[in-house]
């Protein structure tokens, strides 16, 4: 045998073709979004199935930004999503740490209850939630959305954070405590820096969930001032027509903060930070 056999070019080609097909399939809706966003109004129906319109325009974008309330929706969404992500991650980190490190009475019960909350379709509880929010006088406020989103995301985020804490050896904390740290110091100086990927992932997950949530936003918000962007998108649907071009342009713009957010946290998502801690 003369060295390692090279894989046949056919195999390689096949592999890349499969990957390309997969990526194409996943990205096609995004491509279509962009395509319609740049298609001039008069061509939308006449060239509906062409892969790229014969003329492209940015008019939809300028209209959306300057002539609609979209920037307001945007601000609302950013505020709601960021606050929800921060609050959820903070609470989930605390709870996840406790579940990972401490034994206490009722721990398994709390975990079971948290799991149960994940089993119900949201539609089932939308009416009671509406009643509660209304009674609290929080209808049409961003606060209500933040509270509801935070509540719904905490169980999953807690499980996520717990698994991240579980993956950090207990020895590290104990070593820090032997080195003179209090438990809190050990958490801050040793555990927290190692949990950054976990915090990043949780932040990202909750942010996206809040950013794209429609159901509760639709139910709890009616006034134009406090609409989030998914609800705002629906304003492009009028009784007699749908303004596809502007709607898609708004959709493209809505992707931007999500992308920025993930670019920002992606360096914390890099794995392997804990390697080298224990064993050889």
């Amino acid at each position: 045998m003369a060295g390692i056999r090279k894989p046949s070019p056919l195999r390689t080609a096949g592999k890349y073709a499969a990957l390309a097909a997969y990526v194409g399939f996943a990205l096609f809706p995004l491509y279509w979004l962009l395509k319609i966003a740049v298609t001039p109004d008069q061509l939308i129906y006449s060239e509906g199935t062409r892969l790229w319109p014969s003329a492209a325009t940015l008019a939809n974008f300028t209209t959306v930004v300057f002539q609609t309330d979209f920037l307001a929706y945007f601000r609302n969404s950013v505020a709601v999503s960021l606050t929800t992500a921060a609050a959820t991650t903070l609470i989930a980190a605390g709870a996840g740490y406790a579940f990972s490190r401490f034994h206490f009475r009722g721990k398994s019960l709390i975990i079971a209850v948290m799991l149960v909350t994940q089993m119900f379709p949201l539609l089932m509880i939308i009416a009671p939630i509406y009643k509660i929010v209304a009674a609290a006088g929080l209808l049409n406020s961003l606060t209500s959305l933040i509270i509801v989103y935070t509540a719904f995301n905490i169980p999953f985020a807690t499980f996520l954070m717990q698994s991240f804490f579980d993956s950090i050896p207990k020895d590290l904390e104990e070593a820090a405590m032997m080195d003179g740290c209090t438990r809190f110091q050990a958490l801050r100086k040793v555990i927290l820096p190692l949990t950054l990927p976990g915090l990043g992932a949780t932040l990202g997950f909750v942010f996206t969930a809040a950013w794209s949530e429609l159901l509760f936003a639709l139910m709890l918000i009616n006034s134009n001032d406090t609409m989030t962007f998914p609800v705002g998108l629906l304003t492009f649907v009028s009784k007699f027509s749908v303004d596809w071009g502007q709607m898609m342009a708004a959709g493209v713009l809505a992707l931007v903060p999500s992308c920025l957010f993930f670019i920002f946290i992606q360096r914390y998502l890099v794995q392997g930070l804990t390697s080298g801690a224990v064993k050889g």
Partner: protein
Amino acid sequence: MARIELRNVFKHYGRTEVLRDISLDIEDGEFVVLVGPSGCGKSTLLRMIAGLEPITGGEFLIDGERMNEVTPRNRDIAMVFQSYALYPHMDVARNMGFSMEIRRDAAEKRRVRVTEAAKTLGLGALLDRLPKALSGGQRQRVAMGRAIIRDPRAFLFDEPLSNLDAALRVEMRLEIARLHQRLAATMVYVTHDQVEALTLADRIVVLEGGDIQQVGTPLDLYERPANRFVARFIGSPTMNILEATPTETGVELKNGARIDLPQVPDRSTARQLGIRPEHIDLAGPESGQISGVADVVEHLGSDTNIYVDVPGLGPLMVRAHGNVPLRPRDAVSLRFQTGNAHVFAADGTALRSAPV
């Protein structure tokens, strides 16, 4: 430096009793090794000394001061973990100096101490590396450096060598022995490896099933094991244990061979005879007490291990000094060094030899 005392210490996890009535005095500067099979409670005992595990009952004192409720950070004890537990996001220098950082020692003082410790451990060139860029032996050294730098009252080692390969283990064992000589500090060391225990310890504590089986110097345990468990746990290859019944002058084995044991005055409760492989001599056909057939012969160069099949008695392990020209299925005659034989009662307790 510190004197460590355990007084009637108990440990329960719920209803499970892990340690029972442990009393132990560790002198200032002493090197004590806790040894026993896995699950015997040795690591738990160490962690209780460290303060990482609450003490269920009894008292734990350092220099006469009750420590049961004192947090790990205030006990001033350093610990080297089996997993090393290096902080992965800090370089070697910061790992080693972390305790001083927490104590808010001046940066300059910290640097001097770290450099000094790194030099003695041969880590000088690695100070700005992260743990993941170190080999197993280097990580082990950093973990030791982290302990040394604090100048603590006592050192605890939790199976520190078990993740290293055989050659490195011998080397690090030597370094720990040197460290103890240099610092003359109180050290408590947990291992399941009897060679580490025998080579490092001033005194060995043998634990099994949550009880202390015996405390003594390595030679004590080898020469005068308190019971069958210790007798078989210490020493390699393992001691032969043979069923026996007491006679006028000694014991009789199952195959009818009689062994005189004048050094054990009270033999009435004797049920078993224990004899180490190195305490059985190959003899001429006439002078042997027992004869059998060699089953497997292992030539180690310095010694020869012979597994002998004795009719009516079963297998017997013999270790002969030097290279013995024996082959499997050769007939062998054996003679016990009766002065080195041990006798056990039905419950496993060793019947004490009269002082020779």
